């Protein structure tokens, strides 16, 4: 099994598309950091101007924690695309290239192949999240310095003390990884069904886009649907920056995401085990 995982990691590492995610994150993070370095304080002052009329706000400086948070909430929407680029190709790429037949001649079960591919895709996702964390948060802390974090919401503001940020960011990245694992599992299922590698990537992104749009609108009909969409729970990482910490909500959303992963992966295993590869 370990050899199988190693082989799958090697396959991911040798594909040029695997590096698109790392390059895209680097480019986006650097651009946002430069823009915020130039105009970040003015941007923040603009957002809190209604409070400035009532109070003298001490110590509200633009800092690395805030830059990290802004980048995280901006990029987390695009991250599924970068993940789907690799995971959506995992099985369908082998089918399209015709290598699936030789792969299945090995003395391993089909389930083991799916597991090995899934674990390799998860490792890739983990590396992508770590890369994002290092660039968006650690590098921002080095450039902008530490400080209290201002969590901006559309109708409120939460101040998180600097000493409190490490475990919150750590937990947020862990939950963001779980969110992206849902995307990996979904694209895996589509990858098992599809005969080419483009369709799973496009369908995964279309589903996420559709669900996100539904989540954005504050329409009563959509509000009924929202709890059943996995994208609603994918942004639960933000809740780690709330006070008091909504533990129940985080646990519920994490549970729903795990359930989605189990469902998607289970369906992938069932489908792939029955898949006719002779045609």
């Amino acid at each position, binding site marked *: 099994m370990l050899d199988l995982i190693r082989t799958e990691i090697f396959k991911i590492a040798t594909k040029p598309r695997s590096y698109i995610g790392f390059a895209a994150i680097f480019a986006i993070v650097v651009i946002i950091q430069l823009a915020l370095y130039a105009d970040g304080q003015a941007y923040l002052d603009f957002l809190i101007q209604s409070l400035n009329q009532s109070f003298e*706000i001490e110590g509200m400086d633009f800092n690395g924690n805030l830059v990290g948070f802004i980048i995280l909430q901006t990029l987390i929407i695009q991250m599924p695309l970068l993940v789907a680029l690799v995971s959506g190709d995992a099985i369908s790429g082998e089918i399209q290239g015709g290598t699936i037949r030789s792969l299945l001649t090995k003395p391993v079960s089909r389930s083991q192949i799916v597991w090995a591919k899934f674990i390799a895709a998860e490792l890739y996702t983990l590396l992508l999240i770590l890369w994002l964390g290092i660039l968006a948060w650690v590098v921002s802390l080095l450039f902008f310095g530490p400080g209290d974090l201002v969590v*901006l919401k559309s109708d409120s503001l939460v101040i998180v*003390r600097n000493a409190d940020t490490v475990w919150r960011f750590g937990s947020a990245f862990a939950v963001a990884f779980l969110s992206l694992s849902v995307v990996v599992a979904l694209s895996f299922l589509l990858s098992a069904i599809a005969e080419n590698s483009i369709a799973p990537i496009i369908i995964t992104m279309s589903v996420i886009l559709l669900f996100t749009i539904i*989540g954005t609108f504050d329409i009563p009909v959509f509000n009924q649907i929202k709890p059943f969409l996995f994208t609603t729970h994918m942004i639960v990482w933000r809740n780690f920056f709330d006070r008091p910490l909504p533990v129940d909500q985080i646990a519920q959303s994490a549970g729903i995401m795990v359930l989605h992963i189990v469902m998607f992966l289970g369906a992938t295993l069932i489908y792939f085990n029955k898949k006719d590869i002779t045609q």
Partner: protein
Amino acid sequence: MKNALFILLFLPFSPILGQTPNQILYKAHQQFARVKSFKSEVNIYFDLPSVSIENMSGKAFYKAPSKFRIRLKGIAFLPRDNPFNVYTLIRDSSQYASVLNGSEKVGNELCRIVSVIPNGESDIVMAKLWMGTTSNCPLKMQITSRESGIILIENTYGRQVQNALPDKMRFTVDMNKFKVPKALAADINNSPKKTAASAAKSKGTIEFAFTNYSLNTAIEDSVFKEEGK
């Protein structure tokens, strides 16, 4: 003209409690005038609608006649004006007009309500002071200023009452509703809760609890300057 009209309206109530409003204010000022400077520790408690912020601690510094600053580490929402500004206003009786507006109990202490209007240019437009008859200190102050609008300050006195320094100051401030476009806050999937409290304006409170007063010690002017200025 504005001051003359104000005096004409409220003058008939002045002799009610024996002392003239100027005498009441003079007593309070005399008590506070003993304080040339102070530093103290201060715990700050926030209760602000649409802002979630932990209580915090810092140090308060005052230097006569009108320098006041709270120094702390991190983000804090503080009243815009120096809360001891009112003593600067009542320092010279020729600089203001005052009238008695009756009396009222604040806590357990009977207070005389004195309204003060500055004669010249001042940030304070009007101050309504509830002056304690026992402590001779303002237990409640409603200050209307050009910069900050109306602020209500409720004072609780303890050991430093003879110097008119409160143990607690509770500020009630009018707050504009905090609203940022969802796109700017990147706050998708969040539906604002529609409650009765979500009116356009609401009130927030900040409480200072002073401890360990150290009076009339040398304080560098640099303490009162903003960092980087």
